[in-house]
């Protein structure tokens, strides 16, 4: 693109922007945006930490459930043994 073409292009953009500004200023329905559109991105825990917690605690809870099954199994075995022995 030659310097002259660049100049013409930039000039067209300026005219288009001026036209938009003029239209906005003369538009009686242009009431503007609210001063705030929402809360900040503040959070109490990051996604990474939450995922890590979820994985570790789920594993521990799963281990507890397995251990519960073992307890129940052990109870059944010992009760049978108690019946036979006593």
């Amino acid at each position, binding site marked *: 693109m030659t310097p002259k073409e660049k100049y013409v292009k930039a000039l067209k953009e300026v005219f288009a922007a001026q036209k938009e500004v003029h239209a906005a200023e003369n538009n009686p329905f242009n009431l503007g945006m609210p001063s705030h559109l929402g809360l900040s991105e503040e959070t109490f825990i990051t996604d990474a930490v939450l995922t890590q917690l979820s994985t570790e605690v*789920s594993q521990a809870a799963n281990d507890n459930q397995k251990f519960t099954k073992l307890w129940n199994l052990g109870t059944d075995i010992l009760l049978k043994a108690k019946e036979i022995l006593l």
Partner: protein
Amino acid sequence: MILLFLSILCMSCGTIPPEFLTTMEKEREGINLLKERHQKTVYELTENWYQERLNRLLFIKQLEINKIVLSIPDTDGSSTIEVIKKEALIKIDAQFSAAVTLTTKIRNLLIEGYSDTSNWEKLVKLNTINLEMTRSLTDLNAAQRKFYSDLAGKNIPFPSDFINQQTQELLKN
């Protein structure tokens, strides 16, 4: 020997009162209740803003239309005919429609921006994690209590209950 084994085994048993699980479930209900109330509040406040702005736009539209209405005396001279400039009316209508579309977009931005969905979801997720752990501990504790009750006897207090009872008595004294 067996008694010693049982004593050691049962002394190691943890105790999880059923109230723990109830508390966690109530916490989940509380989180869901507050989440719904927050969402409702955000929606209602935004809806109020939206309705006010729509009314203002309608008011402006009427003002603009009034500017392009011409009153011409009727041929009989007893009344007037109102004439509206067609091109100007089309322009006003287009500007009004664009403003309504923008207002609807802003309303959606406001609801999304103030709903704090991410933090609420994290709270629910944390509660689910805690609930899962509490359920597993409660089940384990029930299994341990059943084991103790079946082997040591139903009338003998569970070790941790016994300790708790003694502690309570000591505290009273």
